[in-house]
C-alpha cells in the first residue's frame, strides 16, 4: 500500500517547472508514496506577498496548511521558495506568539475552518535522504549515474533560515549524499548556497546575469557536467541566463533516471539547455534531451 502524502505544487510546478512536478511524483511513487495534490490550493506568496503586507506573509501559506489537513500527515512542497515559506509559517504558528494566535484566528474565521497544526511541511530532498528511503533507493537503482559529475546547488532558500533547515545551512550535504548514492560523482565547490539572483530574474535581469554566470563558471571549474537544484526559480534562472550550455537538473529527475523510470527521458526534453552531452557522461551511455 502506497503511503499518502499531501502535495503542494505551487504555481511553478504546473507551468515552468513541469519536469520537477512529474519527476517528484514519479520518484515518490516508485518509492511507495502517493502524492495527493491538496484541494483548492492558492499561491503561497513567496516572491511578492510579504512586500505587500506583513499579514499576508503568513496568511496565504496558512490557508494552504489548513487545506492540506486531512490529505496526508506530511505536506510535500518541492519548490524551495514555497517550502521555505510554508515551513516558516508552520514554525511561526507552532511557537504560538500573540501575533501568531491573532493571525490564526483571522484566517480561521475567514475560511470557517480550523487549523489543527496537524500537517508537517517537508521537502522531497529531506524525505529522500532519510536513511530508510536511502536504502530503498539503493536497492532500486538500475541505472547508476557512474561517470556523471554534478555540482549540487541548494540556493538561498532551501536550507534557510536556520529554524526551518533540515540540513546544515552553510555547508548543506543532503543532496551530495543522495547524488553520491545514485552513483554520480559530486564535485566540491563553494557556491552551493550562493544567490543566483533568481528573485531579480524578471525585474532586473542585468543584476542576475553576472551571478548566474559566476555560478556556472565555478561549477565548470570544479569539473561538473551539470548543476543540480531543488528550486524552480533557480533552475529557470540558471538555465535561462547562461551562455555556457551547462544543464541544470532537478535532483528528482536524476533520481528517476537512476531508478530507471521509463518516463524519465521525457522530462529532459523540456530543458532549455541540451542535456544529452551531460547525460552521455554516464557510463553505459544513457541518452536524453532534445
Amino acid at each position, binding site marked *: 500500500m502506497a503511503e499518502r502524502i499531501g502535495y503542494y505544487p505551487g504555481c511553478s510546478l504546473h507551468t515552468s517547472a513541469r519536469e520537477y512536478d512529474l519527476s517528484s511524483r514519479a520518484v515518490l511513487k516508485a518509492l511507495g508514496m502517493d502524492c495527493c495534490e491538496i484541494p483548492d490550493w492558492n499561491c503561497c506568496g513567496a516572491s511578492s506577498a510579504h512586500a505587500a503586507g506583513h499579514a499576508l506573509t503568513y496568511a496565504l501559506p496558512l490557508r494552504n496548511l489548513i487545506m492540506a489537513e486531512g490529505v496526508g500527515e506530511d505536506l510535500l512542497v518541492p519548490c524551495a521558495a514555497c517550502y521555505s515559506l510554508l515551513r516558516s509559517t508552520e514554525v511561526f504558528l507552532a511557537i504560538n506568539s500573540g501575533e501568531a494566535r491573532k493571525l490564526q484566528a483571522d484566517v480561521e474565521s475567514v475560511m470557517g475552518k480550523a487549523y489543527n497544526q496537524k500537517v508537517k511541511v517537508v521537502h522531497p530532498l529531506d524525505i529522500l535522504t532519510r536513511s530508510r528511503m536511502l536504502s530503498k533507493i539503493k536497492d532500486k537503482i538500475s541505472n547508476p549515474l557512474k561517470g556523471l559529475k554534478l555540482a549540487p546547488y541548494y540556493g538561498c532558500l532551501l536550507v534557510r533560515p*536556520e529554524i526551518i533547515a533540515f540540513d*546544515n*545551512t*552553510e*555547508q548543506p550535504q543532503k543532496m551530495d549524499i543522495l547524488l553520491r548514492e545514485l552513483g554520480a560523482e559530486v*564535485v*566540491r*565547490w*563553494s*557556491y552551493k548556497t550562493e544567490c543566483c539572483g533568481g528573485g531579480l530574474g524578471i525585474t532586473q535581469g542585468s543584476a542576475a546575469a553576472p551571478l548566474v554566470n559566476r555560478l556556472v563558471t*565555478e561549477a565548470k*571549474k*570544479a*569539473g561538473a557536467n551539470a548543476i543540480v537544484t531543488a528550486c524552480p526559480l533557480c533552475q529557470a534562472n540558471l538555465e535561462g541566463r547562461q551562455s555556457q550550455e551547462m544543464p541544470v537538473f532537478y535532483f528528482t529527475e536524476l533520481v528517476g533516471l537512476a531508478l530507471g523510470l521509463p518516463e524519465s527521458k521525457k522530462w529532459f526534453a523540456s530543458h532549455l539547455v541540451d542535456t544529452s552531452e551531460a547525460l552521455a557522461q554516464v557510463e553505459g551511455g544513457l541518452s536524453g534531451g532534445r
Partner: protein
Amino acid sequence: MVLGGGIAGMQSALDLANGGYLVHLVTDEPSIGGKMAQLDKTFPTNECAMCLLGPKMSDTLSHPNIKIHTCASLGKVDGETGNFRVTVNKAPRYVDMNECTACGDCEQVCPVKVEDKFNEDMRQRKAVYKLFPQAVPNKYLIDKRGMPPCRGTCPAGCNVQGYVALISEGRFGDALEVVRRGMPFAGICGRICHHPCEGECNRQDFDQPIAIALLKRSAADYGWDEASEKDLLVKKPETILTDINGNLLKVGIIGAGPGGLAAAKDLAEIGYKVTVIDALPEAGGMLRAGIPRYRLPGEIVYREIQAILNLGVELRPNTLVGVDVSLDQLRQEFSAILVAVGFQKGRSLPIPGIELKGVQLGVEFLRAAALGEKPPVGKKTIIIGGGNVAIDTARTARRLGAEEVHLFCLEQHGSMPAHRWEVEEAEEEGVIIHTGWGPKEILGKGEIVEGVKFKRCKQVFDDQGRFNPTYDEYETETVFAGNVILSIGQASDLTFLDGSGVEVSRDIVPVNRLTYATNAQGIFACGDVVSGPASVVDAVGSAHAAAESIHRYLQGMDLERSSEKPELVDTPEGLKVVVKDRQQQDLLHASERVKDFREVCQGFTPEQAVEEAKRCLNCGICSECLQCVKACKKNAIFHDAIPESIELNVGAIILSPGYEVQSGELRGEYGYGIYPNVMTSLEYERLLSSTGPTQGHVVRPSDHKAPRKVAFIQCVGSRTCDKGAEYCSSICCMYSTKEAIISREHDANIEPTIFYLDMRSYGKNFDKYVKSAKNNGVRYMRTMISSVKEDPVTGNLIIKYIQGQEIIEEEFELVVLAVGVKPPKAARELAQVTGIELNEYGFAYTDPLNPTKTSRPGIFVAGAFQGPRDIPETVMNASAAAAAAESLLATGRNQLVTPKVYPRERDVSSEEPKVGVFICRCGINIASIVDVPDTTDYARNLNGVVHAEEFLYTCSQDTVKHIKDVINEQGLNRIVVASCTIRTHQPLFREALREAGLNQFLFEMANIRDQCSWVHRAEPQRATVKAKDLVRMAVAKVKRHSPLHMEPVPVIPAALVIGGGIAGMTACLTLAEQGFKSYLVEREPVLGGSLHNLYFGEDGKDAQEHMLQVIERVQSDPLIQIHTNSEITDLAGHQGHFTTTIKSGDLHLEVHHGVVIVATGGKLAEPNPAYGLGKDSRIITLIQLEEKLHTMQQVQNGDPLSVYQESLADWREAALILCASAGKELPHCSRTCCTQGISNAIRLKQQNQDGTVYVLHRDIRTYGFLEAYYRMAREMGIMFARYDGENLPAPELGEKLSIKVKDLDSELEFNINPDLLVLAQGFEPASGARELGTLLKVPLNEDGFFMETHAKLGPMDFPGSGLFLCGAAHSPKFVSEAIYQAQGAVARAVTILAKPHLMVGGIVAKAEPEKCAACLTCVRVCPYSVPKIGANRVAEIEPVQCHGCGTCVGECPAKAIQLQHYTDEQMLAKISAVGGV
C-alpha cells in the same frame, strides 16, 4: 585534592606541596601537561611551550608530597570543607605503572593505528601509546573501547580486529597466530566460512564490510611458513596435567571433525593427553570428506589438522565406536569424553522410486568424491535440494563429467538456503536451476532410474514459519535423467549411544547449552550433534566451550560460568572515513573450473590483503592481539585490568579542568571540515610544533606544499550571539599573532594576514608584541570575514572582505581559524558531582572579590575553568587557589608529610675511589645498537672500577634494590650509571645512594641512550666506541667527586608587604589566615591605594564599600603590623631571613622577615593636554564621572549620608574618549579603561535615555565575559566611533564643545557637540617604583612596571629568591585580578615560610677569597644578583640565594669561583678522559 593536570593543576599542587600539604593530583588524561603541552610556542615571549612545561611536569612528578592519579575522574564528593570524602574512579591503563620503563617496545609491535587526538587527528598513533613524547608520568597505556562487532559476533570468538590489524602491516605470520587462538582452521574457514562477522562489520555503514574471511585465508596462505619458523603454530603446554596419583589426565574425543579437533587442541594446549577416535581413515570429518576440493584444497586441511596432531594429540582412525570399541570401554580409558560425531548421514525422502538404482544421497556422493572414489554420474544429472550441500553436489557432478546438471528446489531464487555467491558460481558453471519444485516421484525403468516427476511448490513455510511445504499436485513437470542425487539434508548416527545412559532426542544429544555437558557424568558433546547441522565456525565455538567445561570438570571446578556477552562497540565517534571499495579476489574462469577440482577462489594477493586490512576502522581501538604482551620484557602489560575506585580523604578541593576549544565547524561559511586547507588554530599549533605531524614544517594539508599566503580569521566561536559564545575568548588575538610570527620564523616566505575585529592585546607587553609582529611582516586587517571560498583546482582559498568602500577578493593558500574557548566537556558533570554553581556561560561561578572560591565551601577553582585566560593569569589563579586552600587548612600544615629517614652517611673521605658501573640495556633501546656486554667488560677494566654489571632496565625497582645491595656488599663509594638522561632519572639513582648510606653527590650518569644509541642507529660499532668513551669520562669525573652537604638555615615566618592597596592588603590578610605575621608598609597616610579612585567594581558593585571593609579587617588583624606614612630605606639578608629598615617620619624601625611581597600598584596618568582637561568645566575625567554617578546612585538609594546633589541628567550629548592619556601611540594598554568607560557610559545612558552617548575609542578591549558590557552598550544605542593616533578627537573649546569625529569603521565624518566630555585616563607605574627596584635589586620593564622572573610561569616571582610581586605593580589590572595575584604571591611566599629552615648548599658557586680581585664581574653577570663584595673586600656568594647556574664561574677572570660538583678539576678530568683510554 587538585583536579586537572594542566598548568593550573600543577601550579596549585606544587605550591600546596611545597607549603607542607599532601596533594592528590587527579587528571582524566594519561599525562599531566594539559593544553599547554599541545602548544608550540608561548606569547609574548616566543619560548618553546614544552621546554617551559617539562621542568614543571618533572617537579610535579618527583615531588614526594604529590600523588598523581592519571586516567581518573571524580565519582562523588561527600563531606564538607576540611573533611571531604572523594571517590576517584580510575580507568585502567593496562600497563603497570611501576614496571613500565617507557622503552617503547610495545608501541613498535602494536599493529593498530588510530587518529592521534593530541595531534588534533593530523597523524596516527598506536593503540598502546604515550600521550606525547615527553609525557609525565613517562609510562605507556592502552586505549580500549570495547568489543568490536566482528570479534563479538564470531561464534568461535576469533579475534578479528587483531589479525586484520596485523595483516595491515603485512605481518601474516603473527596474524595467523592470532587467528588460530580462536580458530584453529584459519585456511579452512578463510575459504568456507559463512562469516557472520562481515554482516556486523561497522564499515558497511560507510561502504562495504571488511573482507574478513578472505583476510583470514591470507593469514593462513601467506603466514604459514613464517609462523612455522617462529614456532607460533604449536603452543606446547607448560605442564602436563596429572591426577593425584601422577597418572596422565586423558580425554577421549569421538569424531575428528572440526569440533572434535578444535576441542582436542584446546585441551592439549592446557596439558591433557587427548585421543581422537574416528571411523574414517583420516582425520577431518566433513572438512575432508564433505566439502569439495575446488572449495577447499586437501593440503590446506591436511596441514591444519597436522598442526593440531603435532601438539601430541593421538589419532585413532578407522575406529567406529559401537562397533570397533564400545563407549563403556572408552569411559574406562578416559577421564572425560567428548562426543563430536556430527551429522554424517544424508536424508532421504519417502517418495516412490527412491530405491531405484542411480539415486544417491548428496552427503555420501560428496564423501565418495572427496575420498577419490569417483562416484558415478550420468551425462544428465538431477540434483534435488536448494542448500549449500546441493550446490556442492551439483558442482561436483559437473566436475565428474555430468554435462547437464539440473538442480530442483522448493524455494524461489532469492530465498534458497544456499549462499547467494555459491548459487551464482554454480550457474556460471552451467548448473541449471529450477526453483519452486518438489519431487513427486522418481521414475524408473526396471531398477534403473529414468527421471523425476516434480510438482509445483506453492509455499515452503507455513504461517508459523515452520518448514511445511504445500504443493500444487496438478502442476507437474517431468525431467528425464540417468542420475538423481538427493541433497535435502543431513542426519546423525547416534546408535553407539544406545544403552549408554546418554540421552538422545530426535537426532541430537541434548546438553546444557552453557557447559555442553550431557546428562551423563563426564560425557560432553559439541558441534552438529548438539545444534543440528551448522557451520564449521559454530562447531569450533561449541568446542571451545565444551573443552573449557571438560577442563573445569577435570579440575573439580564449577562448570557453570558467566555467559555474559560484552556489548559490541560501534564506530569510534568522530572518525573520518574515506570511502574505499573492498578488494576483490580473482576467480578461476568458469570454463576452466568445470574441468577438474582446482580451487575456484584465488584469494587476495599479499598486497591486496594489506590494502583490504587497512580499511578496518579499529572499532575496539586496542585489538588485544597481545603482541605487546610478547614484546614487553618487563611483563608489564595486563589486558584484563579493570577500573578501580579509590576514596580519598581531603581537606580542600581545587578544580582546574581547563577548557575546550570551539569547533571550527561552528562557522560553516569558512568551510572547515570541507576544504582541506582550512584548519583550526590548535591544528596549526601542532603543525608548527617540532613534535607535530610535520616536525614543524608548515605545509598545507591538501598537497603538502609550503604555503606563502596564510590568513588567520579571528573570533571563530567567540563574540557571537548565535554560533559559539557571546564572550571574548581573551587569548586568540595574541595566539594568532604568535602563530603568525612563528610561521615567519619557520619559513620567511610566509606572508601572514590576520583578519580581526578588535586587537585585544590588553596584557603586559602585548602591544609591543603586536608591534613587533607588524614590523616583522605580519599584516593586520580589521574586517569581518563573511565567507571563504575554495578554488577547486588549486585548493587555494578566496576571502572576500570590505576595505573602505571596496569589496576585495584575495586568494590565500592556507586559512587558520582562531577558534575560541569554551567550558571543559566535563563542566556540567563536574558541577553536579561537586555541587558547585556554573555561570551563564557554563564556566565555574566565582565572585570577583573572592576569585577562586566556588559556591561550595572548601572547593576552589583555578585556571580557564573560571573563564578564558592566558597562562600567566592561570598561574596566578592557581597559586591563589592554593593559598585559599592553605588558609582553610592552616592548622593541618606539615602533618601529613613525613620526612624520610635515611641511614647515616658513610664517611668515604679516607677511602680510595671504588667505582661501581651499572650499564643499562634499556630493553632494546640501547642494546640493539651498543654492544652492552662489551661495554660492561670494558668498564670493568677501567682504573678504579671494582664492579661493572649490565641490566635490562637499570631503573626498574628490582635493579635499584640490587644496586643498593652491591654498594653495601662491595663497599662501593662512587657510582656510575650508564643509561638515559639525568633530567628524568638522576633523582632516582641519587635516592638509591642515600638509601645505601652514600652521599648522593658521589654519583655520575653517562647518557648512552639519548646521546648515543638513539642518534647513532646507523653505526652500531662506532656507537659502542662512543658508549665506552662516555662511560670512561663519567668514571674519570666521579672519582674526583666529593660529598656535598646541605646546611639548614632557619626561616623567619613573617613577610614584608610593600604597598597598602588592595593587593598588599589582600596579601597581608591571606598571610594572616595562614598564621603568618606581616609588616604592611604604605607611603600614604591611609590604606586603600588606587581603590580610592574606584567607585564601581567590574561587577557593578560598590567598590568603596568593599575597600572600607578590607581596611577594617586589616586594621583589626593582630598578625598584621601596619606602617602608614612609611617607606623602606634598606633591605639586607636573603630568603628566609631579610632585615629591613622602615622609615616612618623620623623613626627608623628594623624588622626581620623571611620574604618580601611587592604590591606598590600604580597611578592614573595625566590625560593628553590636547583634550583640554581643566580648561572647560564640561570636560571631566572618567574618575570624576564615576564619582558623580556613584553619588547619584546613593542619592537615589536614599542614602542620608550623601548630600552632594549635582545633577548629571541635564546633558544632551555626552562623549567618552578612551585612551585619553595617549598621544599618537599607545605606550601600553591600561587594560581596565574600556570596561570601566563603557560600563559608566551605560550608567550615563540609563540616567538620560534621550541623550546621545558617544564612545570614541582605538580598540575595544572588553575581554572575557566583560564583552557583555560592550554588547549591552551597543544594544542600548550608545554610539561607538573609532579614531586613531593620527587624528585625536580633540575638542574645540567655545560656547559649544565641538569634536570632529572621523569614524574609521564607517569612514563617516561628523561633528558632535557634547555638553559632557569624559576622558578615560591611562594607568602608569607608581612614582618611586624605579628607586624601590634599585633597593630590592629587581628589574623593571620599559614601561616602568616590575619585571617578574618569567612572563608565563613566574608571574609572581622575582629573580631574587624570597621576593614576590603582585597587583598593578606588575601591570594594570582589575581588582579581582589584583586580589588573586596577591593571594597567589602569598602561596609562593609560603613555600618558603612554611619551612622551619631552608636547606642550603650543594651545587652552588663558591668563591675563594684569596684569588678574588673584587673586580665586580660576578656581581654584574649574575642573573639573580647574588654575589656581593663583602666586608672583607672580596666576593661573597650567599649559598641560600645561589641557583648554581655557573655563569659567574665562567666569567671570573681570576678563576676564583668554583661551582661545586662541576669544579674545574672534575670537568678537566672528564674532558681529558675523552682522549685517554
